[in-house]
């Protein structure tokens, strides 16, 4: 991961900003990397009663510092879990409505928070670049009450038009998501290395709501492949604190994910 000038890495920034979005007494569907670090940090800061649900069919793990999982389907991901119900069951908890928040990322994102992790260029059958696929991302964004997208902010990722919608955000905006059959949820937040974004309530277009310290609106615009709305009440985020960074670095001392 790239290391900004102030010594905070991209994933540290995403994990800290992601963690602040999580409330106590809630549930979060979290994957490996920044999402698990954000969830672990939130539990140690302000949300001790936050429960993690993991794609591998794991409920309530307490990951061991220094032994963070590489995949959502391995023993490190299940360490000190409260329940191991299975993969299908974990997603069905989300379909029932038990999951307040889901974290996902993606190779490409558009102005309505749709994500592509399937194929770039060409056709589905003969893509220019075949990506790994949805995994559980489509289910998380379809079924959780609210989704937070965590991503590095780069122009090639923030795309004007996706070749494939792997994970549906607000689709074409307005009522499109509801009309498609997705009656619940939606993307609430996009947390990037440049700032925090929400979505306009009517058009469902992405809107810049806060900048990280030292980042300008022009920088955001130059790093975004579509026209981004800017909030009238734009704020600046509080930089990661020593306490937050200390907790993250204790969780991942080898900086495998930081």
């Amino acid at each position: 991961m790239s290391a900004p000038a102030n010594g905070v890495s991209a994933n540290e920034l995403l994990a800290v900003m992601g963690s602040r979005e999580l409330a106590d007494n809630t549930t979060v569907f979290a994957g490996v990397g920044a999402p698990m670090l954000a969830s672990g940090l939130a539990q140690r800061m302000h949300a001790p009663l936050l429960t993690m649900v993991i794609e591998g069919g794991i409920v309530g793990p307490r990951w061991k510092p220094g032994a963070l999982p590489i995949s959502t389907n391995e023993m490190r991901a299940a360490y000190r879990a409260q329940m191991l119900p299975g993969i299908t069951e974990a997603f069905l908890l989300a379909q029932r409505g038990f999951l307040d928040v889901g974290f996902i990322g993606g190779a490409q994102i558009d102005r309505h928070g749709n994500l592509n992790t399937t194929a770039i260029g060409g056709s589905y059958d003969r893509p220019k670049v075949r990506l790994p696929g949805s995994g559980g991302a489509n289910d998380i964004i379809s079924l959780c009450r609210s989704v937070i997208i965590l991503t590095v902010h780069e122009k090639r990722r923030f795309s004007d038009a996706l070749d494939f919608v792997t994970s549906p955000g607000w689709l074409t905006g307005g009522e499109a998501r509801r009309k498609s059959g997705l009656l619940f949820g939606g993307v609430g937040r996009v947390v990037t290395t440049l700032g925090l974004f929400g979505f306009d309530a009517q058009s469902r277009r992405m809107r810049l709501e806060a900048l990280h310290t030292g980042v300008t609106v022009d920088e955001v615009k130059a790093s975004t492949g579509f026209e981004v709305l800017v909030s009238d009440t734009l704020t600046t985020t509080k930089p990661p604190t020593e306490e937050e960074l200390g907790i993250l670095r204790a969780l991942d001392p080898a900086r495998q994910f930081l």
Partner: protein
Amino acid sequence: MTIARREYDFQAARKRLEGKAKSAGEKLTSLDEAVARVKNGDHVALGGCLFSRTPLALVRALLRRRPTGLSLSRNLMCYEGEWCMVAGAVDKIVTSWMGIGLPWGLSKILREYVESGRVPMEEWSHLALGLRYRAAAMGVPFLPSLTMMGSSLVDVGGSKIIDCPYTGEKLLAVPALFPDVALLHVHRADRLGNCQIDGYPHMDADIVRAAATVLVTAEEIVSEEEIRLHPDRTVIPGFAVDALVHVPFGSYPHECYGLYDAEPDHFSVYVDGINRQGAAGVLAYLDRYVYGPATHAEYLALFGDAALAEARRRGKELVS
């Protein structure tokens, strides 16, 4: 649309199961005899998930028979999917995701074979694939779900969206997937094929019920009495199993919950081979680890006792 009628034809699947012996008898056999039940063109579903409890001993035994025309499905496909592509064994990969994990990057083999159009990857969401096996396990042609709608994934396999007969709301009708063969690795079984799994169950119990033929390897063969003392732990009934093979370290170098940890360094060596030589790197790996060893013991000797003991130590530590 890439799904075939035989994948969701619940009547044909039911007749096939009704026509099959459901024996409470002996199931123990050898790896070679077990995989001889797989025919060219079969749909083979793999148990476990990614690098957890992958039935690698069965996959290796199957590939030694040089099968062709298989469809291969798995919830998250690890590099066994790459082996099957490079070995010329598969016509279709059905999964929600393929790779090893973040540290190893995109699968170069997946890219090469899919981008050139040689082997299609039929992509489903993770839950949707789970519900395909679940629907088949229930003996019905589809299950309604709230997932995947609005996305491009609906078009890939040719899923249908239906109106709920009660509320009128849209629902995804996730089509059943009845595999011809299921390959699984479990913690323990008795000689009759009653199987117990520790830790996360993945989708194995559904895959067993969905498939026409079930081939299982077990870390340990225990007495019937031991199974009967803990019947609540049994997740696969013996009458559903066609062949059982005693294979300690049957998913190694992938993990088996509580018994041994995975070997990420081995994955890195495998990927290095691909980075240097492309598909030829996979062929070299297959020669050394799949086609080369005549027995499972010879295969394990390639890793050595020290590595196996260390994997066991880490595996126990991670559940204590």
